[in-house]
């Protein structure tokens, strides 16, 4: 069977969960080979192996990490030439999508972005038009290059051979034209990562800037915290918490929208959640058209009381 290249998404040597999901999807298309930019740190190798990587290509990133996107696409092109893979899978995100775009041009291949599922045979599912349509498509030319949204598959802990192979990529000067001058890693919130979380509890303008009730409920449920653009624009929450068209797109098991009206741009980021709950004081709020369960009420009284009851039940 052909190899399937899975580009490893990691922060400071910790493999992020969406990569493990890609390894599970890769097994449907061929034999998973992880591509890791960085050094072959044993923790990373063990993790990739445990989740099914048969091969792990380690690409030294000293000429890669200081520049935006282009060097990674170049290295991947060289790996594609060497391995003729059945597909290249990349996590959907700013960087992942742009690597995919460049790689598609370089290899003359079809690209599919934001897949939420891949079937045997390479048929992908995407959710489009703010989640109103579901589209199945397939790459018909070149090497399928597919970016996959986090939470699209369950990681499978079935070990692969995990054979490490150093791959020496040649990075051209022209790929080194956009420099990463500074990079400030985001502070860990201690809560689950927004795009990976099984539960997201969000707040909007209706919080009036006081997110403590939203955060309290999130912590009781072990959830990530999200925000509407109105809450972000008001400076109440950092932009990295924004859910929606121009923020993060999440598809958790449960999404709880508090003091959020449900504008189309917000829906675009959460409409595919399995279960949707809203607390809003206006019974006419459009968010109620989407919900499985809604409470018409003041979030500042409903949320703390619910949080207290949840804590009691847990004990």
């Amino acid at each position, binding site marked *: 069977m052909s190899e399937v290249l899975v580009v490893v998404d990691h922060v400071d040597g910790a493999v992020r969960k969406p990569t493990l999901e890609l390894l599970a999807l890769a097994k449907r298309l061929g034999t998973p080979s992880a591509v890791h930019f960085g050094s072959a740190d044993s923790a990373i190798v063990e993790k990739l192996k445990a989740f099914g990587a048969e091969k792990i290509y380690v690409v030294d990133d000293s000429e890669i990490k200081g520049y935006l996107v282009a060097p990674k696409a170049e290295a991947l092109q060289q790996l594609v030439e060497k391995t003729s893979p059945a597909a290249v899978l990349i996590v959907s995100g700013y960087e992942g999508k742009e690597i995919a775009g460049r790689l598609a041009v370089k290899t003359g291949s079809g690209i599919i972005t934001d897949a939420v599922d891949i079937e045997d045979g390479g048929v992908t599912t995407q959710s489009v*038009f703010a989640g109103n349509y579901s589209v199945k498509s397939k790459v018909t030319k070149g090497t399928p290059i597919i970016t996959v949204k986090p939470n699209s598959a369950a990681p499978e802990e079935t070990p692969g051979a995990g054979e490490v192979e150093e791959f020496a990529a040649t990075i051209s000067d022209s790929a080194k*034209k956009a420099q990463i001058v500074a990079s400030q890693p985001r502070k860990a919130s201690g809560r689950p990562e927004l795009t990976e979380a099984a539960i997201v509890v969000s707040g909007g303008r209706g919080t009036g800037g006081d997110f403590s009730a939203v955060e309290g409920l999130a912590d009781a*449920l072990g959830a990530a915290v999200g925000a509407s653009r109105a809450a972000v624009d008001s400076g109440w929450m950092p932009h990295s918490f924004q859910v929606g068209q121009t923020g993060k797109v999440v598809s958790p098991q449960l999404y709880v929208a508090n003091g959020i009206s449900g504008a189309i741009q917000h829906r675009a980021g959460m409409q595919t959640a399995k279960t949707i709950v809203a607390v809003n004081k206006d019974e006419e709020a459009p968010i109620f058209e989407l919900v*499985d369960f809604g409470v018409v*009420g003041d979030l500042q009284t409903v949320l703390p009381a619910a949080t207290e009851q949840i804590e009691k039940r847990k004990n």
Partner: protein
Amino acid sequence: MNIVVCVKYVPDATADRRFESDNTVDRVGVDGLLSELDEYAVEQALQLKEKAGDDTEVTALCIGPEKAVDAVRKALQMGADKGILVSDEAIAGSDYLGTSLVLAEAVKKIGQDLGKSPDIVMCGMASTDASGSVVPAMLAERLDLPQVTFAAVIETQGDQVRIKRDGDTATEVIGATMPIVMSVTDQTGEARYPSFKGIMAAKKKPLETWTLADLGVDAELVGLTAATSAVEEASERPPRTAGEIVTDEDGSGATALTEFLASKKFI
């Protein structure tokens, strides 16, 4: 300075967006407009022009059906100096490879007419219909220019550019030297509305329509037949059935909410 802003004509998100029988996006039967996210790109181009002085020229470039001229016109009304629509039957149904090829060739032609490469090719962070966020990087690849993408804050000094952006896991500063391809997010600040004066002035601004032949692009390389991916099925998701809505009275809302979460095993 010369800035080319890539503006896309998209189906209105508040209208009923749908697919054609061949599974391509219906771009003619549904009301369209300038992609909202590209308004931010036009705005930033205009702000750079205002900063750099009057010899700066902003050209709005769009690839789309004839109706897409509306998107170019809106950019002109906002303040762009020139407009170009690339429209050709053969382009319909193009995928990202086809679209980025035509855009790149159009930018090259603009460069030939100017006698030098435009300093900035400005894009939105994503189109509101496809949400791909890939065209700017593909353009940079095709034009062999540095990509400076997803800008939240832009600073320029001469031909030096620095942007701040909220990357996937870090806040980053990206630096490059013009000419560049840039994409901007909605964090760059509200886009202006066309003024009455702007609307009147736009009527006199140059607006050209180019075909593939004008660009010297082989029709075989674009359109639905050249597409590298195919949509096999597009189905409307069943609308969410309205759930249970309760009104909070003296704490009943919290209890009902807790019961619901417990019944779904979230607690």
